[in-house]
């Protein structure tokens, strides 16, 4: 791979007049998932059209490769490229041994193709931006049966009460994970702490580990206690039933419940 890159650098030097110049000051490297410069969207759009017209027949319109041309999304050469400095010589000269003809494209079009390829690479790399497909695949009637039956969801929830309009509040993907286990920050356990003296403090649980416990009472005041054997702690976690249900869901039950909740608009 290194040899290949070095060879291409040599080729690039001999073609310097035709190959786009690199930008004068390289951008500061970034240290996250996308660590290289994100190309200009207008260049990507132009590059997609140029690529599709000239390269798509062999390399596929999405650059993932085809019957006669390799994948360029995961191509070491295309990944090493900066604004056409590596792919430019290949485009201009072709690869006679591998059946690739030369394409006499101007430098700005090569830069646009490079921008398109970088964009395709970054779309594959940026997994946090992947689009989740249709998740509403269940049977809503069966979901309702589960809600009112085996799941015992109706013990705490009502489609015309707290869940009215829930499907308007959250998109389907968010709703799928939130109904399984709602975000704890919004629904905190309630706790009563009883001291050895018999004095009690009640409120919303603020902190709990093996050594300390803290709560906020109804007036907003913060109380913290060291945990020892004489301290009595009663915690009511309204989400305990959600944690318990997680152990038993089948995937179809989960999808059915979501399909039912999606009717609550």
């Amino acid at each position, binding site marked *: *791979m*290194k040899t290949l890159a070095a060879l291409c650098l040599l080729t690039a030097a001999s073609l310097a007049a035709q190959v786009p110049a690199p930008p004068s000051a390289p951008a500061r*490297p*970034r*240290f*996250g*998932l996308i*660590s*290289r410069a994100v190309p200009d969207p207008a260049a990507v759009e132009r590059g997609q059209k140029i690529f599709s017209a000239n390269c798509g027949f062999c390399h596929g319109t999405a650059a*993932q*490769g085809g019957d006669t041309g390799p*994948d360029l*999304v*995961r191509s*070491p050469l295309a*990944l*090493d490229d900066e604004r056409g400095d590596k792919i430019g010589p290949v485009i201009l000269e072709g690869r006679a041994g591998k059946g690739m003809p030369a394409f006499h494209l101007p430098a700005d079009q090569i830069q646009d193709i490079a921008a398109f390829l970088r964009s395709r*690479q970054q779309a*594959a*790399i940026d*997994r*946090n931006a*992947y*689009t*989740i*497909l*249709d*998740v*509403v*695949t269940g049977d809503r009637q069966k979901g309702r049966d589960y809600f009112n039956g085996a799941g015992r969801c109706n013990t705490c929830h009502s489609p015309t009460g707290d869940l009215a309009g829930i499907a308007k509040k959250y998109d389907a*993907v968010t709703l*799928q*994970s939130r109904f*399984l*286990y709602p975000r704890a920050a919004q629904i905190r356990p309630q706790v009563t702490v009883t001291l050895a003296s018999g004095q009690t403090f009640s409120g919303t649980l603020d*902190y*709990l*580990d*093996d*050594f300390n416990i803290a709560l906020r009472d109804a007036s907003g005041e913060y109380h913290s206690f060291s945990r020892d054997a004489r301290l009595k702690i009663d915690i009511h976690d309204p989400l305990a039933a*959600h*944690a318990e249900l*997680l*152990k038993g*869901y089948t*995937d179809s039950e*989960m*999808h059915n419940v979501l399909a039912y909740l999606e009717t609550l608009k």
Partner: protein
Amino acid sequence: MRLARVSLLLAFPLGALFSQGLDPAQLLKPPTDTWPTYNGDYSGRRFSSLSRINSSNVTAMTLAWEYRLDAGSGTLTSSIKSTPLEVAGVLYFTLPDHAWAVDARTGRQLWHYQWQSHGGIHIGSRGFGMYGSWLYFETPDNYLISLNAKDGSERWHVEIADVNQEYFSTPAPIVIRNHIIVGVGGDSLDVPGYLESRDPETGQLQWRWNTTPRKGEAGAETWPNPEAMEHGGGMTWVPGTYDPELNLYYLGTGNPNPVMAGQGRKGSNLWTCSIVALNPDTGKLAWYFQASPHDTHDWDAAETPVLVDGEIDGRPRKLLAQSSRNGYFFVLDRTNGKNILSKPFIDLNWSKGLDAKGQPIGNPAKEPQPDGTLVIPAQGGAANWPSPSFDPETGLFYVNAVSSYSLYYLTDTGDKPEGYGGRDSGVYSTVALKAIDYRTGQIRWTHDYKRGGGTIGILTTAGKLLFTGDPSGNFVVYNPASGEILWHAHLISTVSNGPMTYELDGRQYVVVGAGDTLYGFTLLQ
């Protein structure tokens, strides 16, 4: 080999040289005043024979010093994940692009080194390897850097992988004789994994072992085509362990790529998600055991393969134990890789049982689906890179085990997905410290934490103590036989590395990193 030994002798003509350095022979039986390699010794047990701090006096353990990272004008991009080395009274540790030496008695900074990065994901750095007076560490942009331990000056750097191909490196190099064994990381865009041995004097390549086969090689039958295996991932994220008698280096390999979309790589995808034994002189594979055949959940098998000299059915055995990211506890015969035990250490829901080799059989219905499937554990796994510990005195293997639920989505349904090809969305998790009997896989005791989180590193000692962090930011000492809590201190953040220990001038120190601060504890005097 013979030549290598000669040059080793020439390089270290006098024992006196080692007042500042580390003779690789010391790695075979580390003295109690050093912690000379990532796991303290080659076994990966993270058990120390020190007992000056013990169950009868640990309540008098107190802070000796703390060192808050000073990176000069540089930026810190990770918590302390490195386990410091301690040699001749100096601690050496790293962060992405940064390295420090601090006085092991006082926490005073001796030097700081900064690398000018070219990029790469800055997720963490596991630390140094040491050979003589030279230190070695890896950077996110995949350079192996050798520093002079005396003053932190750079001796050389060599590139071990290309950052433009989306590699980023995290492991601590492991030194075996004159081999500096380095691994690579990077799972964003389907690059192939490998392990390399480098020359300690020059950084030149000695051998490379690919974690996936090339066309025509053994293992190729577990992939559909050469392109799939050459883009098949299998990173070497975490340092391995070594048995000098067998001369085998043990390593857990990473998951295959594309990470969550397996339709383009049908087959078991060797040697990803495997525990492998390699000859450290040649890089040749001696045996393998695959923890997750055809993984689609990002459950690498990179967790430390811990060497246990134990007994099975009354016979002494050379064993290897791993608490794997997929939720299974595996015990193997480390002479040949034969499975002795495969037993889940959390309640998982993705396995249909075991094959004839003791390898789990995944349930295809629990592979990522377009509309989501609910799977235990989540992508982060039941265990991960933070070190487990094995205490030979209790015969128990300890791991902070995560029981987590996650929705796994297949986002790329095409024939040839790329990158991850899917996503996961964490739903709920709990964490517990578990003590596992290596003979049976039975969990002898469990300590449930009061909140969820990730797994955290563990140390056990002959002082009948177990040191670890909890998800609430406490550094806690337990009785390793019973799980009873003996001592704790609340730190600035959650423990972020594996605790380590050493003795200097008759005082035992326990050092742990939390966020941006390194803490040294010792007994009140």
